[in-house]
């Protein structure tokens, strides 16, 4: 279980905009620490966003994505009060799901 994501979702004219700030180290596996040892890779591999139970975004992340990544996307539909949930899985098998209500 990583740290919680921050999610904001707002619906306007039938389009919902979702903004997510993910808290994750996103270590590339190519850096060395001060002792010269390689810092092991640790990054999000898959990220899925759902509106209620329907998948609206499905993506594969990699080591090129920054630490604590920011993600914003829009989808058609979504009404005030609906749930938006975002979940990720990283290469260590860790995963996390967070949920927000559309404003």
């Amino acid at each position, binding site marked *: 279980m990583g740290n919680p994501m*921050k999610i*904001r979702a707002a619906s306007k004219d039938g389009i919902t905009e979702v*903004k997510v*700030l993910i808290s994750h180290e996103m270590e590339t596996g190519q850096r060395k620490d001060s002792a010269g040892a390689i810092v092991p890779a640790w990054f999000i591999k898959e990220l899925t966003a759902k509106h209620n139970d329907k998948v609206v975004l499905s993506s594969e992340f990699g080591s090129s994505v*920054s*630490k*604590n990544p*920011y993600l914003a996307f829009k989808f058609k539909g979504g009404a005030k009060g609906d749930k938006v949930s975002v979940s990720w899985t990283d290469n260590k098998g860790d995963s996390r799901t967070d949920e927000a209500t559309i404003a």
Partner: protein
Amino acid sequence: MSRFSRFILSLAFAGAATSAVAFENFKGIGRPATPAEIKAWDIDVRPDFKGLPKGSGSVSQGEVIFEEKCASCHGTFGESNEVFTPLVGGTTKDDIKTGHVRALATGDLPQRTTFTKVATISTIFDYIQRAMPWTAPKSLKPDEIYGILAYLLNLSEIVPSDFVLSDKNIADIQKMMPNRNGMTTNHGMWPGAPASKGGIGNGGKPDVQAKACMKNCKTEVRIGSILPDYARNAHGNLEDQNRNFGPVRGVKTGESLAAAPKNSAELELATISGCMACHGINNKIVGPGYNEVQLRYKDQTDAEDRLSRKVREGGQGAWGSIPMPANEHVKEADAKTLVRWILSGAK
């Protein structure tokens, strides 16, 4: 600070304290500031919370205001690095406990943020009140500022999402600021008396010594590295690729690519004298081209004298409203040479 603004300030301070006395020295100049004027000017919020307006705002109120007025530049989560550096990020739960942002020491941060640096929450309040939003500074009401600040504190994971910040509890939040112990005043950049005299600075003593080192001096210059032979011509003539003024010149390597015909001595003179910045040989730049000048004056016998005077003294009107500045650095003889050159066709 200019003498003028120092004068204004002294007026303002004097107005606040003893208005009558100060104006003895400046008879007939200005008037004491009115209490309303001083109130409008005196908006600072200090680390001891002197000057802090009363009010309160919740995280959720702040979120609405932030989204409306702040997020377009700072990002919804205060994370944006597009317009300004990020407001939030880089602080940990541990930093909130210790009051030192560890990432500043370890260098783990890709980017410093407001909350990694600022030591006093009053500073953020003061800054928002004074300068934000960028397009309409001083437009936020105290309650709105409390709300925005509560939202930022929540984003920094200092307070929970149902928190209400007010003038009553802001002092408690100060005790949780991540970099609250990170501020040092014992250095020359901090104004005021040294600690031994009751101040908090070091009396303005710089931390550089500027002492000439007179030991183990080197007796000769040894060049540390040179361009190896095989690389000398790898990128053409380096001399051509560097500016021909300033401290750094390119070394000449190989043939010059632009084997340009040598310019006439007069053209060189015009270039060093700065004429070519505004005049073209066959075209107008700011001033008229030399072809136009020649065309107008070629039949006037006294043109050479008049124009060479004009080169040195400047003029306006003959070629439109943009004036020609005076060029006293051009020697009289040079000015004559240049004018003769222009009138003979400037080749």
